């Protein structure tokens, strides 16, 4: 965030780590942990070690730390190093040969005596019978594998929308309904989410869609999310974005499929006023009830007044029923974006929407993303790739 902006910054923690933030930590083996940092609490990373959470406060994200004892030491970022091509091949290397005289017990003893990871790996290499036969590429792979096993380092990951989405997608993509980073960014663009805009979001995808819109708004704009539960919806994805509560409550409001229905009569507002107030406690309760009722009434009014700039949907329910229910509240020319892990759902939706004149050009697309290993002489797509980020339908409200 820039200083001196008139809007309330929703996410002031981006950039420096603060007390109470939930941070993502990447371990040497590539695993990512999500940890809430509380002042003077101990963070335990298992094999990698433990440290005092406060030691990370006011640090920028993206740094790599080495844990020695319980102290953190920032280590410089690694640059790419040259690998010399040699004549070596695996012609004389056979599987199952006894090559490593250093036993796991001996390695364990070394680790306990505080010998650094780099030293253990060096000794393993020295004693490895066939190490010199390996190609340079193979040696690099070997070292990297050992590094992942023994090194006591971790890296903080900045909670950008991309990184948070990637973390959740890797953790359990079904909870995001297959919304991958590329899917999410395409949805935000297709809906033309801009600071100051007003959006209706239906998110049964752990809050990734709500998180995306909130992140793009950065405190300036409005989101009404519609959920399928009585109380306010749990959007676990929001945790990692470390949004400020006050700013969040002015931007995001939630209704459910009952309260978002124009026929619905709010119980709270009807019963809250006539009761006689007895004790202080009841007074507080009554005023809370009244506040909740008032806020519900005003959010409903806001929804029904319409003229929203876009509708974004990732839901387990029939998409046509959602789109038909909410499109009356969209402004002319507003975008409708619906995501589904299944093509059949959107193919049906498209064929139905085509027949309704107020939807212009519903189109179904599939998202596709491929990541590459970029090593000189070894640049190629990763052997494993994410199979699906789901499908999107985009249409314009007429």
């Amino acid at each position, binding site marked *: 965030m820039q200083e001196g902006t008139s809007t309330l910054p929703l996410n002031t923690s981006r950039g420096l780590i603060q007390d109470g933030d939930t941070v993502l930590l990447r371990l040497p083996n590539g695993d990512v942990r999500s940890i809430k940092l509380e002042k003077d609490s101990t963070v335990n990373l298992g094999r990698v070690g433990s440290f005092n959470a406060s030691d990370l406060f006011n640090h920028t994200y993206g740094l790599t730390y080495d844990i020695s004892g319980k102290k953190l030491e920032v280590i410089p970022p690694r640059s*790419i190093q040259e690998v010399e091509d040699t004549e070596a091949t695996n012609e004389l290397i056979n599987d199952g040969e006894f090559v490593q005289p250093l036993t796991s017990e001996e390695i364990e003893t070394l680790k306990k005596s505080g010998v650094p990871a780099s030293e253990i790996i060096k000794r393993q290499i020295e004693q490895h019978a066939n190490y010199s036969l390996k190609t340079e590429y193979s040696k690099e792979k070997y070292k990297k594998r050992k590094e992942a096993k023994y090194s006591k380092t971790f890296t903080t990951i900045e909670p950008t929308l991309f990184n948070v989405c990637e973390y959740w997608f890797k953790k359990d993509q079904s909870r995001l309904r297959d919304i991958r980073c590329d899917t999410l960014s395409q949805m935000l663009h297709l809906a033309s989410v801009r600071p100051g805009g007003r959006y209706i979001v239906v998110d049964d995808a752990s809050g990734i869609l709500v998180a995306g819109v909130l992140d793009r708004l950065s405190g300036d704009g409005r989101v009404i999310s519609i959920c399928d539960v009585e109380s306010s919806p749990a959007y676990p994805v929001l945790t990692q974005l470390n949004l400020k509560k006050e700013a969040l409550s002015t931007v995001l409001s939630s209704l459910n499929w009952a309260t978002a229905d124009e026929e619905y009569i709010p119980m709270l507002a009807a019963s809250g006023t006539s009761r006689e107030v007895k004790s202080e406690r009841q007074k507080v309760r009554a005023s809370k009830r009244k506040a909740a009722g008032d806020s519900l009434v005003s959010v409903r009014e806001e929804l029904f007044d319409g003229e929203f700039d876009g509708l974004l949907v990732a839901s387990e329910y029939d998409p046509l029923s959602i789109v038909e229910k909410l499109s009356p509240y969209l*402004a*002319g020319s507003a975008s409708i974006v619906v995501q589904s892990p299944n093509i059949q759902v959107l193919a049906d939706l498209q064929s139905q929407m085509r027949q309704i004149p107020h939807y*212009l050009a519903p189109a179904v697309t599939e998202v596709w*993303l491929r990541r590459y290993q970029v090593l000189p002489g070894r*640049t190629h797509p990763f052997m494993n790739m994410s199979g699906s980020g789901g499908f999107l339908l985009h249409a314009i409200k007429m």
Partner: protein
Amino acid sequence: MWSTARTIAAGDLVIVWLTRDLVQPLYVAPGKDFNSKYGSYRHADLVGLPYGSKVRARGGRGFIHVLRPTPELWTLALPHRTQILYLADIAFITSWLDIRSGSRVIEAGTGSGSFTHSTARTIGPTGHLWSYEFHEARFAKARDEFARHGIADRVTLTHRNVCKEGFTVEDTVDAVFLDLPAPWDAVEHAKKALRKDRVTRICCFSPCMEQVLRTVSALNEAGFTDITMYETLIRPQDVSVVPKLKPISEVSARLKEAERRREEKRQRQIREAQRRKRKRAEEEGEGEGAIQKEESEGVEVKKVKTDGEGGEKGDVVEENDGQAVEGKDAALDVRPAQDATASTSAVVPSKTEPQPDAEEAGQEEETIVVSKTFPEVRGHTSYLTFACLLPAALVTRASEPPPSKGTGDVEMAVVAE
């Protein structure tokens, strides 16, 4: 940026949607006319209409949709000055570079301004974009366009070759996007422009793998980390409504019936020929009859063959009671609906809805919705090479020779130059 009012005003940019493949920008200037093969329209008639209206042509039968401009529609409608960036790449780059409200961003080159408009939208009034274009005519056009679109306050456009002269800001921006033929020449300049108090990001957009390798090498030498590369595409799906697939038992029955009919016909023709032969033999003399016999036999053999084929075709039309043909028409009707939607979709009102009574009525046919990827799609745009730059103090330390070369976690190797 563009109008956020409910209705169209004079001077507004609107996007005219004629068909999916014909989307045009229009600056509303009362007094002027907009003419297309879909009819003629007065600009003045658009003023006061809500955005998203369908407008009928004057006197004609055509119509257009007038839409509120978005960077995504602008990308479809904009005048091409160069090869442009499309949605999939723009969205992914924006996301990886963490461009959002208030971000400060550099873009080089400006090109046709597709990325510029998208980024100007995303960063909002509190952010800023510095855009550089080395081609003078393109620069001038972009300058006029940005002023006209009301983004000149958040986009600083400079006519400059950044590979030679660098950027106009230092220690300022959160992200740099390079769409240049030789991005490696701008990497050091980019490093200067990026702010040093936090993690910053860069993306280089190159169509060729050779460019990627040189870029990776330059980024590494400049101290960038987390170097990675992606390719992203959008695969459009072709959805159509087709008759429910028939079981082979129907085909079998049809073929058997056709064969039975053909055989019947053949027998009928043989009987007919014999009858005629007998008749002629009775009517005419013996000598002439021998010649006639040969001729008519020849003709009949041919006739059986042609009748057989013709009969089969005829059977299909008859026996399938026109449903197959009608069904095919329905499927074909759906396609234009996809392009022009609103009006043409009325052509197929009942066909695509599941009709429970259809079978009983024997008239309506059951349909299914199917989807497939189009036969030819965009297979490659560019490789997206990304990297991070950590705060200055650390980068300095990193550029020293690595402390433990033998055992360091070697993720990548430098291209030997």
